[in-house]
């Protein structure tokens, strides 16, 4: 697994992809938080809400771009055959790629700690618990998007198809369930249940700074399911 992980990381930072992902992420969020209208400085509260409400959308675009090639390219060039005939299980290959992408997402997030530092210097009474909870939520959220992206990449030999499919699925699981539960045709409990399937409810819940075990379990299960889907998709050649 480690060999695959290392190869993927080298591929990210050996090409422009890794740096570009970081640059796009930081520039977009930097503009939203500090420069554009209604930015964090104009608001009178010492918080990083703008960062944490916008980062999921940036991830929604960026993560499918990071993961789209992970299996699609291996399928297209035939190198998947090289990998799966080695003494490696499919899961080891999947996890290697998964953790490499998670690492890249975390590296994208790290410089934003500087924003946190800035805010603490500018104001006081910042809710640190909420900030750290939100960071944890973002890591979970990006990992969930990555699991989706890796899955869609394993479905096709065309990276663009994988990208579009991942973008669509990320959108649905992040906002779709929320939207459906808000439409009003579902009664209270059912609406909550539907919203609970989506990522946003759990992301918001963690962001409050109270890490509920149920939310953690939700994310881990979500990721596990998509990684298992990926395994099934890779094994479909055997049917």
């Amino acid at each position, binding site marked *: 697994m480690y060999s695959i992980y290392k190869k993927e990381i080298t591929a990210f930072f050996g090409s422009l992809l890794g740096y570009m992902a970081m640059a796009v992420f930081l520039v977009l969020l930097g503009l939203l938080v500090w420069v554009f209208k209604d930015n964090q400085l104009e608001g009178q509260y010492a918080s990083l809400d703008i960062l944490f409400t916008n980062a999921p959308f940036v991830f929604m675009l960026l993560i499918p771009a990071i993961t789209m090639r992970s299996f699609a390219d291996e399928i297209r060039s035939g190198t998947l055959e090289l990998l799966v005939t080695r*003494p490696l299980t499919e899961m080891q290959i999947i996890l290697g790629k998964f953790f490499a992408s998670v690492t890249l997402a975390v590296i994208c997030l790290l410089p934003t700690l500087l924003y946190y530092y800035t805010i603490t210097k500018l104001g006081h009474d910042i809710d640190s618990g909420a900030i750290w909870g939100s960071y944890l939520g973002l890591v979970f959220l990006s990992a969930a998007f990555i699991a989706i992206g890796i899955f869609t990449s394993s479905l096709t030999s065309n990276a663009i198809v994988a990208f579009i499919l991942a973008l669509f699925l990320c959108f649905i699981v992040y906002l779709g369930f929320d939207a459906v539960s808000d439409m009003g045709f579902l009664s209270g409990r059912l609406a909550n249940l539907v919203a609970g399937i989506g990522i946003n409810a759990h992301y918001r819940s963690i962001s409050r700074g109270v890490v509920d075990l149920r939310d953690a379990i939700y994310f881990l299960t979500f990721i596990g399911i998509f990684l298992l889907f990926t395994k099934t998709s890779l094994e479909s*050649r*055997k049917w």
Partner: protein
Amino acid sequence: MSIEVNKLTKVYGEQKAVEEISFRVRPGEVLGFLGPNGAGKSTTMKIITGYIPQTSGKASVCGFDVNKQSMEARRNIGYLPENNPLYHDMYVKEFLGFVAGIHHIPNRKARIGEMIGITGLEMEQHKKIGALSKGYKQRVGLAQAMIHDPKVLILDEPTTGLDPNQLTEIRELIRRLGKEKTVILSTHIMQEVQAICNRVVIISKGKLVADDVPEHLVLRSGGGTQLLVRFKEKVSPERLRPVKGLKNASLQPDGSLLLTGDDKLQEELFRFAVAQSLTILHMNEDKQSLEEVFRTLTS
């Protein structure tokens, strides 16, 4: 036994890609796996390497069942898939390092250097794989297949698309490897089989049609000798009729004679020439090639 394949069958939907194929390969053998395109060569190889499972039958490598003891079997296999897939944006050394890492090879650097030496990649070792010529890519493919020193090498069409020089070099390399390892290589070039293999398995439409040493195969198909002879004197084909074992004789445009007959033809012709005091200027023997055997067996 290095490789044992027993009644292997693979069915894709309605179509039988491989049907009840059985063969064994002993350590140190170079087995030529022959068959027309679509005969089931690659399918059989993919089953042995564990890429796809068989529908029925068994395959084992070094005593390990490819399904039940898949990991052990894979550790003993070096595989060069068809079309030699490689990561084109990786560097040669980086790629070999990656493969060595998967196999947990100790002394990684030394082993990579050794493989680069064996496959003759010294000049190209700092390049990106995508920048290499086809022949050198093929060497990288062989290097990745051998880096963990497997007992069995499975090479799917290792010489397609190479120029004549590269062809000779790669064949030489495989022949050298074949001395220590068990090799299965698929091809549809007959000279290749005659040049490097000490056994041949021919399959056609998914079925095994021959399993023998190349020489026996030629004999079995009723093959014989073909001679191109030139006499100093003018000799008509009719005059050679008394030669024992001669089946056919024809005059070529350049005045030489093309003779076909059994294995003793050459001797008999020589004796005849001496008895008749004819002078042989030139005699060229051409054993009936595997190519014809292949054609008769697979069509």
